[in-house]
């Protein structure tokens, strides 16, 4: 069974799980308060930023800090539970499928789901900005290149987070425990990006990258450039280590049985 | 004297009638075997007797008590095992039963007694989620038998047990009316089980009670209607088929 076949099988396993709704709802809930309170973007409180960039950054702040990690937690649990509940993993073990490859297939699926949510977020941003612009009689829409570039950066920053959450979901049999650890790791991101060692805490990467975008849009708020060293080597190392550990452990407890 | 008596008991879910005007008469100190095909309303009937499901129409009495006014009193006197074993997975067998014992206000010894009775004593300290299917079944039974209640409602009690276990539980159930003056409503898909266990038989199909009486009365009725009477299985299947044809239903 080749990789593409496995991806197809994984896609079928997600049927009737309402995953699209699970990805859409947080996006909708994120932007509704933004439309209702769009007027606060004009009260910049001394920060030198344009209202349209303020609207974008404030909305994406909730996404980068909270929604992306929370959605990743939900998706990892969903993907792993399709195997663990009703003993699907036992069935997979009895088929000619390499467990490490299956593990990577599921991780790829996770990244695809994240990509879907990012696309939904961009769409929701434009709809919200349009609605807020009509309400505030001010054009709050930003050019697509800027929005897509920032979103792509946040997505790239979320890949190591996805790898670590996936590893936790594979290693920890109790789903509520892995979900709890994932959700709790979201909270300190705000503090951690202020410290020198933020690159050791993957959950803070998307928020860090958005704050750099904020720093570029409003001088004096945050750094204006990404500290690639040691961020990039740390990111690559953490991602590869998390994936390797998850490949080692995937299906192992059912094999011992 | 009837321990459990229903009067036109009916349960509807929207336009679907799960149980249709059934009149059960379960005598005190006897075993009543419920013979029911899948999806015919057996679990719904049992749930109504326990007050878990609200009847759409009709009424029932258990002893001298009626639902819904005396529901709590009724539940103190019924031990039940419905559909599948129900327990708390992270607790041991003993701990699970201890919780039930506390709620029922029974002495501590009743847990040890019932564990011994169902053969779970060697496994009482193991977490229930680690029990095999048969052990989970025994745990469910143990929960129903706790304190030897005067009425037992058992839904497929030998499901998942090995032949020795089936024999053991059947012997146990058979002895209860004599030993403890229990009244038992037991259901099973194994017709041989009902033949060996039940004093009276009730046959339900698609929500309707087709027959109620002893095995010999069933044979007489079947003979009169021209149905096979060599075995309970043949009689049962013929009765169900005839009912299905009469109602334009599924042919076996």
């Amino acid at each position, binding site marked *: 069974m080749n990789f593409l076949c496995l991806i197809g099988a994984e896609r079928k396993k997600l049927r009737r799980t309402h995953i699209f709704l*699970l990805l859409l*709802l*947080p996006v909708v*809930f*994120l932007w*509704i*308060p*933004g439309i209702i*309170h769009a007027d*606060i973007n004009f009260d910049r409180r001394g920060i030198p930023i344009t209202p349209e960039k303020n609207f974008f950054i404030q909305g994406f702040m*909730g996404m980068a800090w*909270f*929604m992306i990690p*929370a959605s990743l937690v*939900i998706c990892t*649990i*969903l993907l792993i539970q399709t195997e663990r509940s009703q003993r699907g993993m036992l069935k997979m073990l009895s088929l000619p499928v390499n467990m490490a490859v299956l593990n990577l297939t599921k991780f790829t699926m996770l990244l695809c789901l994240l990509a879907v949510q990012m696309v939904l977020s961009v769409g929701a941003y434009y709809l919200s900005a349009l609605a807020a612009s009509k309400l505030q009689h001010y054009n709050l829409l930003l050019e697509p290149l800027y929005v897509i570039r920032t979103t792509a950066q946040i997505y790239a920053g979320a890949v190591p987070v996805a790898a670590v959450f996936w590893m936790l979901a594979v290693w920890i049999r109790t789903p*509520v*425990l892995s*979900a*709890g650890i994932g*959700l*709790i790791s979201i*909270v*300190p991101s*705000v*503090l951690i990006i202020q*410290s020198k060692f933020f690159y050791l805490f993957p959950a803070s990467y998307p928020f860090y990258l958005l704050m750099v975008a904020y720093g570029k849009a409003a001088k004096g708020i945050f750094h204006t450039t990404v500290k690639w060293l040691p961020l990039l080597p740390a990111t690559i190392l953490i991602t590869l280590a998390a994936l390797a550990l998850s490949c080692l452990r995937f299906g192992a407890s059912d094999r011992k049985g | 004297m009837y321990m459990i008596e229903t009067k036109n008991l009916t349960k509807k879910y929207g336009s679907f009638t799960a149980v249709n005007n059934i009149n059960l008469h379960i005598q005190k100190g006897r075993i009543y075997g419920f013979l029911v095909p899948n999806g015919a309303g057996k679990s719904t009937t049992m749930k109504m007797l*326990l*007050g*878990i*499901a*609200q009847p759409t129409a009709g009424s029932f009495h258990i002893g001298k008590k009626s639902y819904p006014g005396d529901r*709590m*009193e009724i*539940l*103190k006197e*019924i031990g*039940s095992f*419905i*559909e*599948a*074993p*129900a*327990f*708390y*997975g*992270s*607790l041991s067998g003993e*701990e699970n039963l*201890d*919780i*039930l014992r*506390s*709620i*029922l206000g029974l002495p501590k010894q009743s847990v040890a007694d019932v564990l011994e009775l169902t053969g779970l004593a060697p496994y009482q300290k193991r*977490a*229930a*989620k680690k029990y095999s299917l048969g052990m989970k079944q025994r745990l469910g039974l143990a*929960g129903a038998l706790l304190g030897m209640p005067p009425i037992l409602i058992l839904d497929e009690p030998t499901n998942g047990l090995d032949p020795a276990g089936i024999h053991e539980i059947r012997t146990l159930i058979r002895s209860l009316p004599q030993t403890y003056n229990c009244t038992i409503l037991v259901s099973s898909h194994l017709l041989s089980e009902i033949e060996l266990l039940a004093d009276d038989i009730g046959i339900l199909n698609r929500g309707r009670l087709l027959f109620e009486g002893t095995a010999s009365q069933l044979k007489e009725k079947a003979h009169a209607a021209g149905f096979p009477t060599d075995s309970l299985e043949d009689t049962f299947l013929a009765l169900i088929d005839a009912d299905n044809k009469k109602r334009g239903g599924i042919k076996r």
Partner: protein
Amino acid sequence: MIVLLEAKKLRHTGYFPAFLGGTALAAAIPPIHMSVRSDTFTAQPGDPFRILTDANWQLMTMLNLFLVICCTCMMYYTEFADNGAQKMETLPVTESRLFCAKLLLFLSCIAVMLLLETIVLALCGKYWFADYEMRLSALLKTCGFSFAAALPTVILMLLFASVCKNMWVSLGIGVLFMFTCSMFPKDSLFFSLCPFNSPYLTFAELADAETQRRFLSACAAESVLFLAVKLLMIKLRRCFS
């Protein structure tokens, strides 16, 4: 007695270790934050306890809310996972009594959690601020206020968990509510009364006794409302089951 039974049901589920661990994590925020940025906070004028709560309470509350969501879901997960809830329905104990017992148990854990966190804040004040005077009455008022502010959230979350047999649905609803409510402006008293938002408010933040009284009355009214909704749902479910 029923409360003790509910506590027994939670053995080996990780509920109590999770509560303790979560409380320790939230309580660790002020000392860690202070040890890293003590100069920033000690230089600020005003009441040291107020400075500490302003700097740390948001994060601590966020962790507390996650804990509330996860633990309420775990509480009902133990009931639904292996059909324990159905067994309870066949016993002479009402569902409302079981719900209230669970609520009482949960509120006891919350009270301990808030007390510990308030004590840690006070100890940080004592350690880092020379002029801070620890007063028991002030600490109890703060703790009591936080408990009252958390009540509507706890009851609502327990209601969701009791209604959704699938734990992930109730978990998702809780996280979604928490997330949405965190987007509302914190300076509006109206929005601060929303469940999942009210725990963020501290005793010191409310200007006067009248505002405090109104806020606490609103929390009490919300709590009674959610409890009444649950009891009504129990009655209706029995009628329509």
